[in-house]
């Protein structure tokens, strides 16, 4: 299975220069006090695999792109080497080199394997909807949700069709009601209402009642039959039209009188006689205009020259004007004639149109003799129009008398009256309009209702289909939602089982179990969390549980989900727990640590802690749980803004110091050696502070330097651990004088430090190297610590380094295997088996008393 071999980080979050966290394919327990860069490694892993850092993305106003980079570095490098040799780097992107690595990286994209201290209560504290969203990456329901949404939209579309059809039904109902003259219905109109209304209309015709709309066609046929029984209504109508046309023709012909034309003509003729000359008004006017405008010296008509004297020309102009005045009367009478002509022509045209209409009607009835009589009238009208259309000058008195006499001879009125009388006699035997009209109207109404009802039937069919469609799709959606909720709830039950199993390992109180995840029925996605609290089964855990138990619950849920995710992605085994143990109270932490180390032994875990005591406990628990060989334990000793976290191992630092001392020939190289010695001494004292439980004056963020720890260490070695002091007295005393030399190469300038010689610096380095050998065991790679017994004895874990109490026998530390054997299994597990322990102690007491 693929795991992380090495993680290299540079210029990201709290990590400045390149730092390598070596996993060696194992799990890593990373200790570092607060603010030493542990979480920067976690963030770097998340950034590498997912492309962002969750806490930065969640915080308002922050983002990974802006705040991920280290503030002192321009370049960011994050690179992981996997155990199969694949390399993944932020710079080159994720380009998996093997199929296994491909699966690994595909699963790592969702950051559901990282739990940070501040996130431990997220799932519990969030509202149900957010809980559901948190579970979504574990429940890939995208496809199902898309289907539900499509069904929802399809049902909605069908509902819109229903509404539209219903609206059309209502419109049609209103039109039917309007046509029948009944009150407008609120919704639809019933068949019985329509039948009732039609029946009351049919009552007066004696046709009978309408029982259903299907009888409408029959009723309409009956009305049609009634109409036909009244006679040939079309012929009656035709004759009525002929009579009307005859009346119109008589009226128009009555308007055709010659008198209004004759009178102005006679006036015009009188003028022409008086003037005795041809009308040349126009010629005179044009000539006059020409003369005035051009001042010509010849006649514009004949070209004859006249006297060029202006006086003579003016005389001509006066003469012409006089002529024109005389012509004015003639002009006026001529205009009267023209007006009379126009009026007469209009009347003749109207009479002509009326006669043509009548002619068409008579031809339609096949009455040829009447048509020929009408033609004579029309011919006379034509002659009358011809003379009327002549120019007034061409209209002689003789011509006018001939035409007028001919028109009088036509005697159109008696003949037309006689024609009308004949047709009135025929009309008397045909159906009357007042009898026919109601039946015709009823016939039309029934046709309209029949058409509207047919349309209504069609819309009703559409409505029924759309309603059915909507109902089926709605039910299909309901069934889909039910299926989803059932399956998800079943999955939750499996998850519940896992959560409860994990939780019981931490808190075995039978009154506080039965944790349940429940999908909310009312919403599309919402998860409720229930837990038993004594007789309150199914209560919200926030109501009764303390923070410690809520923390344990949060962790159990996360771990259960992590396992769930592993079921989907078996090749991906990374689990990152960033300082989560220290958020859980001490009472439960051993159980949690044991749970993680035992139950998740097949995972590659990155477990960080800021608690030194817990770091040591966890190292012990690793051994007790039998997973020691699967862990790499790392401690961050220090952190500075420019250097970032210091991950160096103490024995590496010691070897480095030895090399520097060996090569120290120049003042600069001595300074380097003294500087490295200062860092190693600081490291040693940090370890001693914990293992010897040194008392130091409390300091903010617990950042204790050599100056704070050394006096306490020296004093305790002298007083409490004389074995150590006696054996290492020379080194301890020397360092008690020389430790301030650390400042020689430190950041602070001291006047006295400028007088420190190279030899002093070298001696300081050598003393630190010697102290390291006194307190650090090469065999078990652990610093010395107080032995369980006797008091005052110090030893490393394996007993290779041993400082017995003067005058007392040295007691080698008992190995874990021996202790388990001796205690009859009481120390077999991380958690002490109290029963076995007490039995062992009782047996020991009995043996001693014997």
């Amino acid at each position, binding site marked *: 299975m693929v795991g992380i071999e090495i993680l290299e980080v540079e210029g990201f979050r709290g990590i400045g220069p390149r730092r390598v966290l070596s996993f060696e394919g194992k799990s890593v327990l990373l200790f570092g006090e607060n603010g030493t860069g542990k979480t920067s490694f976690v963030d770097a892993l998340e950034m590498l695999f997912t492309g962002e850092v969750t806490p930065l993305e969640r915080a308002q106003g922050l983002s990974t792109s802006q705040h991920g980079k280290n503030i002192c570095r321009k370049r960011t490098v994050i690179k992981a080497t996997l155990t199969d040799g694949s390399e993944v780097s932020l710079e080159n992107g994720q380009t998996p080199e093997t199929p296994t690595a491909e699966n690994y990286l595909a699963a790592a994209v969702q950051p559901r394997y990282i739990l940070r201290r501040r996130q431990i209560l997220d799932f519990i504290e969030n509202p149900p909807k957010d809980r559901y969203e948190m579970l979504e990456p574990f*429940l*890939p*329901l*995208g*496809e*199902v949700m*898309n*289907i539900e*949404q*499509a*069904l929802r*939209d*399809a049902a909605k*579309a*069908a509902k819109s069709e229903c509404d539209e059809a219903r609206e059309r039904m209502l419109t049609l109902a209103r039109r039917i009601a309007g046509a029948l003259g009944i009150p407008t219905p609120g919704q639809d109109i019933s068949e019985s209402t329509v039948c009732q209304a039609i029946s009351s209309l049919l009552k007066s015709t004696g046709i009978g009642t309408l029982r259903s709309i299907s009888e409408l066609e029959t009723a309409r046929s009956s009305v049609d039959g009634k109409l036909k029984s009244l006679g040939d209504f079309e012929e009656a109508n035709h004759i009525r039209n002929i009579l009307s046309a005859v009346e119109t023709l008589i009226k128009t012909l009555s308007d055709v009188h010659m008198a209004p034309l004759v009178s102005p003509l006679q006036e015009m003729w009188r003028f022409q006689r008086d003037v005795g000359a041809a009308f040349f008004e126009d010629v005179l006017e044009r000539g006059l205009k020409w003369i005035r405008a051009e001042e010509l010296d010849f006649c514009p008509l004949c070209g004859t020259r006249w006297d060029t004297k202006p006086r003579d020309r003016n005389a001509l102009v006066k003469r012409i004007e006089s002529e024109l005045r005389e012509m004015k009367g003639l002009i006026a009478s001529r205009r009267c004639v023209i007006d009379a002509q126009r009026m007469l022509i209009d009347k003749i045209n109207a009479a002509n149109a009326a006669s043509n209409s009548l002619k068409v009607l008579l031809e339609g009835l096949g009455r040829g003799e009447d048509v020929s009589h009408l033609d004579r009238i029309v011919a006379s009208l034509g002659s009358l129009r011809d003379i009327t259309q002549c120019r007034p000058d061409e209209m002689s008195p003789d011509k006018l008398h001939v035409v007028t006499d001919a028109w009088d001879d036509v005697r159109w009125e008696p003949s037309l009256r006689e024609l009308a009388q004949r047709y009135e006699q025929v009309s008397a035997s045909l159906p009357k309009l007042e009898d026919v009209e109601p039946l015709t109207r009823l016939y039309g109404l029934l046709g309209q209702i029949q058409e509207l009802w047919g349309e209504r039937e069609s819309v009703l069919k559409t409505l*029924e*289909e759309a309603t*059915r*469609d909507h*109902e*089926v*799709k709605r*039910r*299909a959606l309901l*069934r*889909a939602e*039910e*299926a*989803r909720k*059932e*399956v*998800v709830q079943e*999955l939750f039950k*499996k*998850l519940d*089982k*896992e959560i409860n199993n994990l939780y019981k390992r931490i808190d075995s109180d039978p009154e506080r179990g039965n944790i349940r995840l429940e999908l909310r029925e009312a919403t599309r996605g919402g998860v409720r969390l229930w837990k038993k609290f004594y007789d309150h089964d199914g209560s919200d855990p926030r109501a009764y549980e303390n923070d410690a138990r809520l923390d344990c619950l949060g962790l159990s849920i996360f771990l259960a989900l992590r*396992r*769930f995710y592993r*079921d*989907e992605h078996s090749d991906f085994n990374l689990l990152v727990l960033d300082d989560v143990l220290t958020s859980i109270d001490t009472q439960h932490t051993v159980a949690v640590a044991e749970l993680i180390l035992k139950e998740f032994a097949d995972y590659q875990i990155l477990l960080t802690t800021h608690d030194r005591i817990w770091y040591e406990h966890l190292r012990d628990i690793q051994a007790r749980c039998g997973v020691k060989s699967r862990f790499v334990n790392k401690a961050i000793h220090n952190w500075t803004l420019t250097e970032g976290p210091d991950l160096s191992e103490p024995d590496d630092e010691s070897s480095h110091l030895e090399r520097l001392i060996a090569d120290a020939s120049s003042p600069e190289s001595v300074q380097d050696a003294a500087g490295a010695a200062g860092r190693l001494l600081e490291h040693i004292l940090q370890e001693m502070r914990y293992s010897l439980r040194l008392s130091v004056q409390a300091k903010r963020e617990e950042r204790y330097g050599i100056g704070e720890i050394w006096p306490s260490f020296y004093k305790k070695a002298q007083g409490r651990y004389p074995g150590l002091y006696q054996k290492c007295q020379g080194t301890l005393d020397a360092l008690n004088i020389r430790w301030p030399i650390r400042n020689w190469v430190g950041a602070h300038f001291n006047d006295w430090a400028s007088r420190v010689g190279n030899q002093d610096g070298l001696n300081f380095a050598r003393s630190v190297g010697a102290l390291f050998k006194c307190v650090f065991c090469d065999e078990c790679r652990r610093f010395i610590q107080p032995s369980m017994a006797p008091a005052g004895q110090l030893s490393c874990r394996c007993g290779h380094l041993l400082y017995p109490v003067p005058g007392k026998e040295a007691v080698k530390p008992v190995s874990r295997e021996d202790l388990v054997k001796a205690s009859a299994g009481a120390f077999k597990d991380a958690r002490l088996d109290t029963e076995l322990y007490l039995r062992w102690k009782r047996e020991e007491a009995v043996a001693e008393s014997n």
Partner: protein
Amino acid sequence: MARVVSISEQIIDRWFVKLKQDDTVPEKFVEGLELLRKQRRLSNLDSLRRLQVSAEEGENGRH
């Protein structure tokens, strides 16, 4: 914990079981949905909209 193989598939299978048990959902409609599932078009709105309920089935329910 049992291994989970495609939750979506499980849900869709369950959905079809429920649809077939529901007398108010016509068989033809379910068959149409099954065809869409085979074509991987169950989430296609146009396909679902076009999937009409036949009148005779709708009137008479399940045959």
